[in-house]
């Protein structure tokens, strides 16, 4: 036998189900008060979700327009339910959703731009770390096998087919200011991989391009290789140069 709490819970669930199912109200029964009310909740949900996505994905929004973003939002609401009570946490899977739609065939760069924007958003909200200066003394230890480079939790090493960082920067200009030839060049068939690092410095997200070697080095650092193993693997790598950049750019949390 169901408890009264279960009954209440199911009734609340039924309302939520009706709101999330945009097919729940047909055109024919849209005239009565209950249908009108439900329609308002459905519209509210969609509008709030679209706004949440447009804040996180301003360049995707600019590239495809609000109508297409709204259609993606509707699909995303079924693929990724909001679960935390903070819309800023929702929308991580937009990139993978785009890859499953026709938009991906027409705009093959779009999923990568979305991925880049999500990481920017995450980095902007992450907690930056202060360098543990005292830990740098471990560089003088004789056994570097037990010394590990610790990177900021906000740092992400990413590779893209398209120059997403440049595409993103170009879209910071107003529509009239965007050089369409420059944009077309950025969006053309990719020829090489674009390696970047996204990190937080002075509380704002930053992006830097990486060489192939810097990229591989950072991936191995993140994988937990000891300093000795890193130096054995990257014989010609200039550690002191890299360390000064890593400290300056707030990539480095310390040595463990």
């Amino acid at each position, binding site marked *: 036998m169901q408890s009264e709490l279960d009954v209440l*819970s199911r009734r609340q669930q039924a309302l939520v189900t009706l709101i999330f199912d945009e097919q729940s109200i047909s055109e024919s029964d849209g005239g009565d008060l209950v249908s009108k009310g439900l329609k308002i909740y459905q519209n509210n949900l969609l509008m709030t979700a679209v706004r949440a996505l447009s804040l996180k994905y301003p360049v995707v929004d600019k590239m495809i327009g609000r109508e297409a973003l709204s259609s993606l939002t509707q699909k995303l609401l079924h693929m990724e339910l909001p*679960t935390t009570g*903070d819309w800023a946490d929702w929308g991580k899977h937009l990139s993978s959703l785009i890859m499953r739609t026709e938009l991906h065939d027409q705009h093959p760069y779009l999923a990568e731009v979305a991925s880049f924007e999500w990481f920017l958003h995450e980095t902007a909200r992450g907690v930056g770390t202060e360098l543990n200066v005292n830990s740098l003394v471990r560089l003088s230890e004789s056994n570097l096998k037990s010394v590990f480079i610790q990177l900021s939790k906000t740092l992400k090493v990413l590779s893209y087919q398209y120059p997403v960082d440049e595409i993103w920067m170009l879209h910071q200009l107003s529509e009239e200011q965007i050089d369409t030839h420059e944009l077309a060049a950025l969006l053309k068939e990719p020829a090489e991989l674009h390696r970047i690092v996204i990190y937080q410095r002075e509380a704002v997200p930053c992006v830097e391009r990486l060489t192939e070697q810097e990229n591989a080095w950072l991936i191995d650092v993140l994988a937990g290789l000891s300093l000795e193993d890193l130096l054995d693997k990257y014989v010609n790598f200039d550690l002191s140069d890299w360390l000064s950049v890593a400290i300056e750019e707030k990539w480095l949390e310390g040595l463990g």
Partner: protein
Amino acid sequence: MSCLNTPHTRGETLSSMVGVGLRHPHYKEALLGSSFIDFVEVHAENFFAEGGILPAILDDIARQYPISLHSTSMGLGSAVGINRDYLLRLKRLSQQITPILISDHACFTWSNLNGSSVHAGDLLPLEFSQQSLQVMVENVDKVQQVLGRKILVENLSSYVEFSFSDMSETEFLTELVNRTGCGLLVDLNNLIVNAHNFSDEGSLQTATQWLQQLPSRAVGEIHLAGYTPVSENELIIDDHSQPVSDECWSLYRTALKQFGAVTTLIEWDNNLPSWSVLLEQATKARSIMKDVTVTKALTVMKGVSEERVLHAI
């Protein structure tokens, strides 16, 4: 002003404060100017990020204004309970800025969908039943224990009504106050919107009757707002996109006569006006509050002196 940031000293000291909802496009102006407002209200979820620039912005705001922390996602009436992580984020924020008030709505938001937990992303209406009341009481108790302080619960504008309700909204809220010790945030615009959408009587009359059924001592804040007009037979949406409506100003006078001076907020969330227009609305609220409370005081004094005269005779 510093004492106002201490949650346990609020009460009378807060009663005549007038503030505005502070939204992102106005941060700069609010922080640059010396605005003639007593406090600002921020939406809690907008500051849930633990890193980046937002915590520093909030600290700057808190240095300049007392803050009322208004959350929109707590879902106090959710039968499945309130998400623990959400509550912990709210608690961290509350500890960071020590707000003068903390509030959320008499609604539900947390539920299940297709076997997964979901946050509905909106303020969904409650049925006013004993079981629903029990859920609200337990959740409000829990929130007040976690936060270590009293919260205010706001009446909702809703777009559907439940046939399962066996008490009125005011009976529901009154009983909630009695059983949890929480306060009430009375949103006058929500009352007007509900009255327009569901009452056969005049909206001001319906809203006034609603106010009369509340325990005056429990009212800790009033929200004033406006809505986009709709054509006849359409439901009004509580979109907070317009200046405070004439009806709402009128109801505000009625409310002040009943409750006395109450902390008042101008709530404007969409189609935002300039910062100066928002401040003008706050100035109007302050002027009405002063007018009504002075008139009320004079009436009382007059009554006392006449009584004394009669007694002397």
